[in-house]
């Protein structure tokens, strides 16, 4: 039997996603819109962070939110109470996907008044593995870890921390009640991303929010 012929192609598997992400990025740049992709495990407090953020930044920035979940519209309902434009993507219709992709964001953009916004948050599906791999065209990826999750997590989910433009350590009001070693946690974040800025905050008490709001206001 004749052996097969090998054709070298060297193509990025996610090239199609990256093309759509670049289109999204161009569109955001034209509109002067800052887009932040928020990544964390389930329950780290992404929705709570956004709820606490909207109240503090809305006098200076017009905010919109795209929320990704596998199922239910509960997060979008929480955000909508703050009277900002919100679009819920439930990935169930995409086979229960555990992350958002550039094309799902493109679809969601048709449902949100982009021209009336300065700042758009994308609350990714709660997951520290898959969302890190997919470029959405965002300006910044913010990876968040709550202090209850354990100081070893940056080492276990390297890509989520490696690709981050900002790392948030959330729920710091709980530190006195936990056996978490904050120094070890900070060191583990540095091991994954030595140059990244890390903010420590609490959506419950508002601790650390001044630096976060200031970071969001940067062009």
């Amino acid at each position: 039997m004749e052996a097969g012929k090998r054709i070298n192609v060297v193509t990025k598997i996610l090239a199609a996603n990256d093309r759509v992400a670049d289109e999204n990025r161009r569109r955001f740049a034209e509109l002067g819109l800052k887009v932040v992709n928020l990544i964390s495990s389930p329950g780290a407090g992404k929705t709570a962070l956004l709820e606490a953020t909207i109240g503090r930044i809305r006098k200076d920035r017009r905010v919109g939110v795209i929320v990704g979940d596998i199922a239910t519209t509960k997060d979008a309902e929480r955000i909508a109470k703050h009277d900002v434009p919100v679009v819920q993507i439930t990935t169930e219709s995409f086979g229960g996907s555990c992350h958002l992709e550039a094309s799902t964001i493109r679809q969601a953009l048709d449902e949100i008044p982009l021209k009336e916004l300065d700042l758009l948050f994308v609350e990714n599906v709660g997951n520290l593995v898959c969302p890190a791999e997919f470029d959405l065209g965002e300006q910044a990826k913010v990876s968040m870890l709550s202090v209850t999750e354990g100081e070893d997590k940056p080492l276990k989910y390297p890509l989520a921390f490696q690709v981050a433009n900002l790392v948030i350590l959330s729920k710091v009001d709980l530190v006195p009640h936990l056996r978490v070693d904050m120094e070890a946690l900070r060191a583990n974040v540095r091991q994954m991303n030595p140059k990244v800025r890390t903010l420590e905050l609490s959506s419950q008490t508002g601790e650390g929010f001044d630096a976060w709001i200031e970071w969001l206001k940067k062009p």
Partner: protein
Amino acid sequence: MHEASIAQNVIESVLRLIADGTVQGKVARVYLKVGKLTAVVPDNLQFMFGVLAEEGPLAGVKLEIEEVPIRVRCKACEEAFEMHEEIRLICPKCGSADTRFETGRELLIDAVEVD
């Protein structure tokens, strides 16, 4: 479980290579390079590819998945380190934070074999 999405992207990429004439003939195998940093489980990817390719033009095509180890290069002392159990980006030799991944982030179709 991003393997399903990656498998779908492999299928679409190969179909595009066929459509634009880069690949001619009946596809038998697709060679992938997958970096360990992507956290892709090769068995899951293989399985999802089989399920998603079934009944399409790539039904029965075999995936050959080569896993690429994670290698970090220090820009300060120029030493390279292969990482296995734990990944650390602060240089173990000189302590510099000025490092980069040399390999490990690959998500590539390297080659296509046709009959």
